């Protein structure tokens, strides 16, 4: 979505008025791929039925939601997908889809165009079938996904490629860039690998180290910090989050992000969260109305009350401008919605270094270092526990 003055003004007003104008709904966690980095449990534990989802959509329309993203899991595994899309369009939502596209043929692409779906985001991990298919664990998946992209393009639909980067496909960003150029579609490279929704951290092993990410972060065509601001004008920034609504703006000012302010996430089971990446349960639509949860949930209001300037560690950070701290990941990885977390600090230091800052140190790292130093002052009660030089 273009970041225009009109959009910035709207974002400010929706935040001020607490209008949930962008909502991400996962219709299912079931999937026909088994991506190695996926954070979901693919079993169906009682998805909302067609009528339940329609009821939710009506509530969202009444509360002011405009941007609706259907995602999953794989949305085309829902037999009622087109019924839901048709219903959503009758309520005048702007609709984006996130899909692996394996089940999109020319007929389905035509239907999506007829329903005026605005954008379809599709994950591609590499332009090399062996690499892509090894991540999805479905042989032939790249070929099928590419065929689907062409069906969608033939209908004139806007397609965007999302490429989550991990150890297994780190060098693929070049060929994904080339593929996107060949197809004439935008792309986003996403370096975020998150823990599983149940808190299992094992997926984090798939993350590339910051050292491994250096060539990507230094690439001026990808990272705005690696080039002069003037050369960025008119360019599409290609690094970001594949899970975001795509409505980015400086208008969020002192709030960490849109989560809970003008956007939220709804699971296939009706659970409402501030964001798909923020495991703060705020209510369930099978028991409460959306308005009840959105406006009156204690947890939603707790998330909403957070201000960047009040973050205990990060607000003091001298390299904050180079950081892309995500409050949801702070909760998942650091256990504190308000806290700093290692990955963000590492990346901020790397980005600052690339931008020319000498010896950048995040506030969290500085605090740890100070605490180590202060603990090294001889004190009989703590001295045996000090491990000088350890990480």
């Amino acid at each position, binding site marked *: *979505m273009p970041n*225009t003055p*009109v959009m910035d003004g709207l974002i400010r007003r929706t935040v001020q008025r607490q209008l949930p*104008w962008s909502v991400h709904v996962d219709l299912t966690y079931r999937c026909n791929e088994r991506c190695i980095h996926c954070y979901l449990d693919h079993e169906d534990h009682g998805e909302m039925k067609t009528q339940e989802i329609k009821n939710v959509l009506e509530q969202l329309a009444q509360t*002011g939601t*405009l941007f609706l993203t259907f995602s999953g899991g794989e949305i085309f595994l829902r037999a009622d997908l087109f019924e839901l899309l048709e219903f959503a369009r009758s309520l005048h939502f*702007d*609709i984006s889809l996130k899909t692996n596209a394996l089940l999109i043929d020319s007929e389905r692409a035509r239907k999506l165009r007829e329903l*005026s779906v605005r954008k379809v985001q599709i994950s591609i991990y590499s332009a090399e079938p062996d690499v892509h298919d090894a991540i999805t664990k479905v042989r032939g998946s790249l070929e099928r996904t590419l065929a689907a992209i062409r069906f969608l393009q033939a209908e004139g639909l*806007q397609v965007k490629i999302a490429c989550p980067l991990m150890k297994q496909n780190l060098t693929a960003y070049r060929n994904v860039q080339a593929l996107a150029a060949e197809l004439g579609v935008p792309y986003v490279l996403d370096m975020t690998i998150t823990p599983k929704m149940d808190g299992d951290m094992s997926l984090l092993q798939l993350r590339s180290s910051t050292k491994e990410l250096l060539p990507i972060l230094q690439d001026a065509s990808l990272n705005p910090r690696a080039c002069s601001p003037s050369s960025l004008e008119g360019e599409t920034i290609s690094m970001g989050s594949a899970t975001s609504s795509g409505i980015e703006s400086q208008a969020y000012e002192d709030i960490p992000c849109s989560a809970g302010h003008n956007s939220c996430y709804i699971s296939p089971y009706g659970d409402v969260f501030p964001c798909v990446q923020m495991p703060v349960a705020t209510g369930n639509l099978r028991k409460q109305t959306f308005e009840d949860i959105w406006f009156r949930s204690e947890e939603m209001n707790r998330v909403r009350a957070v201000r960047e300037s009040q973050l205990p560690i990060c607000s003091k950070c001298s390299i904050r401008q180079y950081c892309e701290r995500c409050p949801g990941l702070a909760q998942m990885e650091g256990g504190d919605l308000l806290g700093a977390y290692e990955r963000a600090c590492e990346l901020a230091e790397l980005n600052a270094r690339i931008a020319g800052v000498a010896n950048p140190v995040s506030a969290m790292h500085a605090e740890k270092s100070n605490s180590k130093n202060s603990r090294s002052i001889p004190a009989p009660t703590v001295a045996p526990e000090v491990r000088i030089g350890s990480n």
Partner: protein
Amino acid sequence: MSGEITRNPKLAWREVDGAMVIISPEDSQVHELNEIASLFWKHAEGKTLDQLVERISAEYEVARETARADLEELLAALGEKQLMFVAPEEKG
């Protein structure tokens, strides 16, 4: 222009804080209508220009010619951006 006025059915829209926000799925263009245009968007659907002229001139006590000129101008602006159209009259 005596056919019915209709919104472009491809568009997504929602009222945000009193103003109509409209998005085109084809180019992701965002339009925000002012107060008058938002009212027109909400109430003109399915009406003819003649019907709207009658209603506006009665409700706001303005001359028919003035109401017609203003509405035509508004409709032309919305039509130029492909937001609203006057449907061709059905020939009976």
